[in-house]
């Protein structure tokens, strides 16, 4: 068990090194660099050269990657000139907003998705099942930025019930309690947008996994012993069906991070997504590489965590 975790951790470090090399290589072969952005279109050649030297852009690619990896090992992701602060600080500053949005959305997705998935699977082929399946397929297919836009157009612009974007109301002096309420009001639309997409995914997986498990002998045995249907569904079947659901959600974390950028863009949510978009548009390589590395780390960690959760949910699974 411990050996397994250690091996997986080592593998994860190797993966992240590969991500750094790949990202650096990508930015290296791409035309233009941050020095050009800073110096401007008609930049003085001497100033440009100075800037390149300052950021080691005149050194070889191998040198740059090596230096970066050493710094990362020391917990330093470099300095972003565009942001005017260390990359790690920029990421840490935006992380709470993203975590708040992701956490709320995932809660909505899990609570609603497992419930609807179990409901659909409890009566396969019924109207209810067909309805839930269609809703989840549509929810999965509608682009998240358009769905967000529709919600803004209807609930914020037309009806004026909720704020259209941002995380706080600007320029108002609020007490602590009002501040929490204010953020909560801003949180509703983005988290419903993201939560709906994720819920569609959870519904689909839960339904498929439940149907798979419901055909098993032990479920029939439980029913044969006269155990109540709800107990069979929730205590016997769901526990085993959760395994694939966990895998899908952890495997889809990369998708969630990508979609996050779009949701944050629609709602001007001040999280990592907007930071990434800003750094893309300003060719802020240190922040870009830092963010890609950070999100790859999150995905790899989630995969590992998912496998460990597996063992907890299903004691039959043992890794060596």
């Amino acid at each position: 068990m411990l050996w397994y975790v250690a091996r997986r951790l080592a593998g994860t470090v190797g993966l992240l090194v590969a991500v750094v090399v790949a990202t650096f290589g990508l930015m290296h072969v791409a035309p233009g660099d941050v020095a050009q952005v800073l110096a401007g279109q008609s930049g003085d050649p001497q100033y440009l050269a100075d800037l390149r030297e300052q950021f080691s852009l005149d050194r070889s690619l191998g040198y740059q990657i090596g230096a970066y990896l050493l710094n990362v090992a020391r917990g330093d992701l470099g300095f972003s000139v565009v942001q005017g602060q260390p990359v790690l600080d920029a990421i840490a500053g935006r992380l709470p907003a993203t975590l708040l949005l992701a956490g709320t959305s995932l809660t909505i997705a899990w609570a609603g998705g497992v419930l609807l998935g179990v409901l659909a699977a409890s009566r396969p082929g019924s109207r209810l099942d067909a309805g839930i399946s269609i809703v989840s397929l549509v929810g999965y297919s509608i682009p998240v930025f358009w769905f967000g836009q529709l919600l803004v157009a209807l609930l914020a612009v037309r009806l004026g019930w909720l704020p259209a974007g941002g995380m706080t109301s600007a320029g108002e002096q609020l007490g602590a309690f009002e501040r929490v309420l204010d953020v909560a009001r801003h949180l509703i639309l983005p988290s419903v947008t993201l939560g709906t997409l994720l819920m569609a995914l959870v519904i689909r997986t839960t339904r498929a996994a439940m149907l798979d498990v419901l055909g098993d002998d032990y479920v029939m045995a439980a029913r044969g012993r006269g155990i109540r249907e709800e107990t069979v569904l929730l205590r016997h079947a769901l526990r085993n069906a959760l395994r694939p659901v966990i895998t899908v959600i952890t495997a889809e974390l990369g998708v969630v991070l990508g979609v996050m950028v779009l949701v944050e863009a629609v709602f001007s949510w001040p999280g990592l997504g907007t930071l990434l978009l800003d750094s893309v548009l300003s060719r802020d390589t240190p922040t870009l590489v830092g963010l890609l590395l950070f999100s790859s780390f999150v995905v790899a960690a989630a995969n590992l965590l998912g496998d460990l959760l597996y063992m907890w949910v299903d004691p039959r699974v043992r890794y060596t």
Partner: protein
Amino acid sequence: MIVRVAAMARSRPRLLAGLVLLAIAGLAALAGALGGADPFRTSETLLTAPSLDHPFGTDQLGRDVLTRVLHGVGTSLRVALLSALAGTLVATALGLVAGYAGGLLDDLLLKLAEVLQVIPAFLLALVAAAAFGPSLLLLVVILAVIFFPRTFRLARGEAIGLRERDFVQAARAAGAGPLRILRRHILPGALTIIVVNASFQAGTAVLIETGLSFLGVGDRDAVSLGAMLADAQSYLAQAWWMSLFPGLLVSVTILGMNLLGDGLNELREVRTVMPGRGE
């Protein structure tokens, strides 16, 4: 014909619905390509509501939304088809060979797939599109790379699963070479799951194409439904038609591809494969 469609609607509703939605998207793209109207032509009539002259209204530069939507669907379909096709061909070929032959090539490609799988796909596409300057060709290449791990693993898994089966061993004993075995005996067994997968990937391709354009890093020379929705974002209060029609068409296209994938998957009559996940 009508009887057969009715029978299909009963037995395979998803497949039929998917084909209908994709036909709508295809016809729209065709109308845009053959219609001859210029999607970039501006006019004096800014932000006008849908009318007989402009059935879908006009945008903030006075461009006809209907014309732009038709061209935008064409862009999405082109990107989706090309990337799903290119990605599927390359990854399937490599996956089958790697799975069948094993060895160093298999190890290397598997590692590559692992690395690509931890980098969030949309972020990779965003960074690459921004770094190299947006172009549709580049986007197709990036998407094909993004799709590689999943298709590769599918094809590889099928090849490993079929490698030791009796009919393959019989073919080998009869003196068939590895290429012949792959083509005649292993590829047919892997084909359905790969087509299902390609169908979902085409839907993902449309999402990523419109998503990148929505964020402003799409190809400016092509009309994109994503870019239209980005324009619409600033005029939600005045011009709902700028958001509604492009959004509907993107959704119809993606839903069509996902329904097609679901429907084809039902034909395999095994439990549902999730779109967009590994293994």
